[in-house]
């Protein structure tokens, strides 16, 4: 009888200690997970800021307009010759993108070219109606909104940055008509893809703010 009561007390004490340990270790684990998550988010956002620095370079953002026209040049002026977006982002009959832009750069004439030359859809506009680039938070939100980005998830965005011909063109933009080379984004394509991968692996976090 006495032995059985002692055993019961022992079990109760053990259960209590185990429960306390579970609670404490759980709390510690949650705190550790939260710290890890915060660190991951911070790293993800740092990677995103690198991605953003590329997306808002003239080679990229000139065709991610909010208006009915593309832009050109490092000063991002309105495209000359009254070129307009058209229903599919490829100009209009008689004045298509392909009226001048071929499958490759034409360095002898200074006309840039690449496969399927076209404007990004308006859902992927990265600037406002005054041609001012949107904030890092706004571009990130748009890029990760699957109702706006052709339903691309994180790996899909990474694949787009890694393989899309017009993305590649930004690093091989050819010569201007005056024979000088067009500028390229601030990261190499490899660095851009690596930054996108880090951002995707962190869960495509976006900065807070408007």
């Amino acid at each position, binding site marked *: 009888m006495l032995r059985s009561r002692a055993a019961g007390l022992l079990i109760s004490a053990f259960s209590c200690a185990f429960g306390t340990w579970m609670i404490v270790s759980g709390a510690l684990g949650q705190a550790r997970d939260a710290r890890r998550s915060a660190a991951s988010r911070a790293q993800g956002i740092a990677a995103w800021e690198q991605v953003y620095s590329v997306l808002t370079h003239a080679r990229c953002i000139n065709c991610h307009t909010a208006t009915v026209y593309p832009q050109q040049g490092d000063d991002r002026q309105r495209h000359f*010759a*009254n070129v307009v977006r058209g229903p599919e982002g490829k100009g209009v009959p008689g004045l298509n993108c392909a009226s001048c832009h071929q499958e490759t750069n034409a360095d002898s004439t200074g006309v840039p070219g690449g496969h399927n030359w076209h404007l990004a859809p308006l859902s992927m506009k990265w600037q406002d109606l005054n041609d001012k680039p949107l904030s890092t938070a706004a571009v990130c939100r748009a890029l990760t909104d699957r109702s706006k980005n052709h339903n691309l998830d994180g790996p899909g965005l990474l694949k787009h940055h890694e393989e899309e011909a017009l993305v590649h063109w930004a690093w091989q933009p050819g010569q201007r008509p005056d024979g000088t080379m067009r500028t390229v984004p601030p990261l190499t394509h490899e660095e851009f893809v690596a930054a996108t991968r880090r951002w995707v692996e962190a869960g495509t976090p976006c900065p807070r703010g408007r």
Partner: protein
Amino acid sequence: MATYQLNVNGERRDVTVDPSTPLLWVLREDLKMTGTKYGCGVSACGACTVHVAGVATRSCMLPVSLVGERPVVTIEAIGRDPVGRAVQDAWVEKDVVQCGYCQSGQIMCAVALLKHTPKPTDANIEESMGGNICRCATYVRIREAIKSAAQRI
């Protein structure tokens, strides 16, 4: 120099030129087809417009090396096309031409428009023809002729 086999107005034409030569100059200098005009030389005026694989194309900025096997149609042959014929007839009917220098490009662009948009609105015409400049300002008659051609098609 390199030799290219071009398909111009349904005929094979061999030319030996520098690869960077714009198609415009191949047409005018090598093939002696002077209906296509040199205007600005930088794609800004539309005088040099021809059709490449059915797309209205500024031939002054297209190196011949990038033409490939795509068929080229110029103002010399556009009248063989029913839409092209309708546009040229409408141009005559409305007496569009003043000095005439830009008109081959205007017609090639108008044909491209009507092939895709048989009943164009004023907005369609403004957008599609907006890159074709006419120093004589025949724009009102161009619009009337396009609408007239649309009724003939």
